[in-house]
């Protein structure tokens, strides 16, 4: 498998008023094409920090991230990001939020509209194209966020606990939707969560992170066949993975 992204000894130390905080020990791993990889770890272990470094929103204290062999130096459209919250512009409609991502590509207004509507259709929101974010539920807003980022086809999709703020039922719906969308798009995803079941259901591969300073302590392949429906969430296979991953994560929480 070819590596789309390579993290080479990436570490991060924040300088705070109380002194230095090492959020991330040097971590190294690769992301492969068409693979869904999840960073799993307790809160505060440095998952967001790692994702922000990959997005170019934060600089690494040491090491580097390479995308297709090129060193990451600031944000760029080859890496798309889905945030946990505050990500839709409240003054724009759902369709306009998607179109926003398509400006500057030399597309006409009509072409942008068409792509936006197509993307909204893929996430089941074509009827809400003209609704403002305030009129949408949390799950719907995150769907628009996903439609927006998919619209410009980044090489790598970075997702930082995108379903963290949703209620349990909506969360499961979103996991289903993301699985469906991903299985039809097949792109390189780096997903962040602290929810073990979510990680197993969505991923081809799970990187378990240690407590702060974060490092990769386990690299687990999830061999549950695709396409995966919601029944996977209650399957024995998932339970099995869950048991070992829970032990792995818990060891960290107690450490």
């Amino acid at each position, binding site marked *: 498998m070819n590596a789309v992204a390579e993290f080479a000894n990436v570490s991060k130390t924040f300088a705070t008023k109380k002194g230095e905080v090492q959020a991330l020990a040097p971590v190294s791993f690769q992301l492969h094409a068409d693979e869904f990889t999840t960073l799993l770890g307790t809160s505060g272990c440095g998952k967001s920090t790692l994702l922000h470094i990959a997005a170019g929103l934060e600089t690494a204290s040491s090491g580097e991230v390479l995308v297709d062999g090129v060193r990451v130096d600031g944000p760029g459209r080859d890496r798309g990001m889905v945030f946990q919250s505050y990500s839709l512009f409240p003054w724009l409609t759902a369709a306009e939020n998607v179109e926003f991502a398509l400006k*500057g590509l030399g597309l006409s207004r009509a072409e942008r509209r068409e792509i936006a509507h197509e993307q909204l259709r893929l996430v089941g929101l074509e009827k809400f194209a003209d609704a403002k*974010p305030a009129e949408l539920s949390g799950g719907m807003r995150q769907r628009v966020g996903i439609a927006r980022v998919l619209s410009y086809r980044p090489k790598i999709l970075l997702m930082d606990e995108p379903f963290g703020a949703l209620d349990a039922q909506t969360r499961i719906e979103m996991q289903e939707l993301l699985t469906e969308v991903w299985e039809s798009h097949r792109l390189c995803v780096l997903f962040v969560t602290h929810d073990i079941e979510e990680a197993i259901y969505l991923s081809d591969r799970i990187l378990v992170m240690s407590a702060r300073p974060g490092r990769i302590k386990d690299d687990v392949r999830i061999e549950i066949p695709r396409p995966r429906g919601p029944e996977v969430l209650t399957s024995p296979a998932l339970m099995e993975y869950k048991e070992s991953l829970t032990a792995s994560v818990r060891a960290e929480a107690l450490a």
Partner: protein
Amino acid sequence: MRRDSRRGLFHQVSARDYWVWGGSALAALFALWWTVTALQLVSPYFLPSPAAVLGAFTELWGDGTLQGDLAISLQRIAIGFSIATLFALPVGILMGTVWRFEAAVEPIVDFIRYMPAVSFVPLTIVWLGVGEGQKYSILFIGTFFQQALMVMDNVKRTPREYVQVGQTLGMKTLPLLGRIVLPYSAPAIWDTIRITLGWGWTWLVIAELVAAESGLGHRIIVAQRYFHTDRIFMIIILIGVIGLVIDQAMRAIDRAWFGWSRGGAR
């Protein structure tokens, strides 16, 4: 007995509540004014009757004096306030976003803000004479520094995630400011403009009281010279009414343009 479902503190005041309660309070105040003057409890030199104030209005409106004063005052505030706002917007936006700019400019702006604008009146007369430029300069001094600081605060409230969304889309500084920070802050900035415009009337009248040949403030000074307390009352009330009308118009525009900012969700 039915209990009032809106007991306790912090209940939302409805439009109807405003009409009923606000209207009653205003009517009561007016009735008190009318009674005191009708019973001649106070000399009309101190407190003219409502009829006298209305008379002053019809008189000055009838001979065109009032229209002339009104026009020149509105023109002064329009020009002086617009100049201040035009400068305060970019300065405030840069102070709120670019740290070097904030570090360099904010202390100066903050310092000058504490100097009473009124105390600049003699200085501006020395510098600019008593012409229109001097009126604009007082409006500018009174408005610009407050606005710049308030706009800085307005844009600082832009959630970082919005800017990060733009950055991951490859947007550079100017587009980030123009297409994300400014649209997000626009409702708050509009509010800043609305509030500072209210204060602007104070600076205008002060400037006109001190040195002017026309305008509402000048008319007040003239009225005082001839003991026309009724005219003073009339002009003060008129300024209040104009302020209220402009304020309500700006609120209406706010509702029409920035409805999204009250949705609460993003």
